[in-house]
């Protein structure tokens, strides 16, 4: 196991960046952005994992009987999930309007701003 989980996070980020760089469709690019974000969840939760431990939820567990994983990174990842979903929504709203005015969602065809 070892560092493979961390490396997986790096791979997901870079492959998403590859998709973003070569994207020919803004909706696809926004999807890739969502993939890029999943790398952050992956890293955060991998960092907080503890071997042979269980979730820090004591509704069905007596405190102190079993080791628990790091709750802080879970809270961070939870915040991150919300942030990601909302940013996706906002960017999609922009895409809808862009399509109406530009008649394209291909980044290569957007030439209004340059120089």
């Amino acid at each position, binding site marked *: *196991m070892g560092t493979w989980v961390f490396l997986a996070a790096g791979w997901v980020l870079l492959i998403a960046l590859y998709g973003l*760089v070569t994207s020919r469709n803004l909706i696809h690019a926004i999807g890739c952005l969502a993939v890029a974000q999943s790398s952050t969840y992956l890293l955060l939760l991998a960092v907080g994992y503890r071997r042979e431990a269980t979730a820090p939820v004591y509704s069905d567990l007596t405190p102190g009987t079993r080791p628990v994983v790091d*709750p802080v990174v*879970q809270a961070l990842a939870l915040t991150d999930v919300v942030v990601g979903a*909302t940013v996706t929504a906002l960017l999609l709203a922009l895409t809808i309007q862009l399509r109406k005015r530009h008649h394209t969602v291909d980044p290569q065809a957007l030439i209004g701003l340059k120089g």
Partner: protein
Amino acid sequence: MTARARLAVFLAAAAVIAAFFTAECTDLPPFGTDSHPYGERAVAAALDRRTANVVSSVNFDIRAFDTLGEEPILFGTVLGATLLLRQARDERHRRAEAERVMPTTRLFGALLLPVTLVVGVYIVAHGQLSPGGGFQGGVVLATALHLAYVAADYRALKKLRPLAVLDVADSLAAASYSLIGLAGLIAGGAFLKNVLPLGTFNTITSGGTVPVLNAAVGVEVACGLIALLAHFLDQTIERTDPDQQRYGDT
């Protein structure tokens, strides 16, 4: 840049980043390490506040200020979508049509909708005890309402969805988070201080302000997401594009 040059630049940069990232990962503590100082302090603090779900305690008590910053992101997105997806001068509104749906689908939706609502409420209400909380439950609640659309049609959804009320509820829920923070400031001397009685461990009222904030977030997420989806659905179903109108009217 040409597509080829862009790819070359990216690949060169990505190779360097990948090499560095790999080297960094070998410097990290091993996967599954036993050393989580902040996490252990947080667990102790949460148990001290009699909150069974430590993650909820971190989100709504220990690091409640993060959530104070996170909720406005959702609120701002709803506002932003309201602004961005507004009706432009050259667009028109048209009414959604009634759609024919298979009776089994309709029955399925009608049965699933109340079940989903109950599950949503359960997940919000038990946020401080078992996994779940305002955000997760809020999404379920919003999804429940949209079953009316996917299993019936847009008209059915519109009947179920008092948009003005939801907008106001969204804003009020967003404001209430800051207001609870201010209440903590006035009553306890620190912003967002957990001033309510903590109750008994592992009951629905334990945790002081945690369940209250949880509920506020649940309301905000549910109302906000319904409003957000409403703008998207409105665009897709009831709004004509400026150019469609030009051709379509002739």
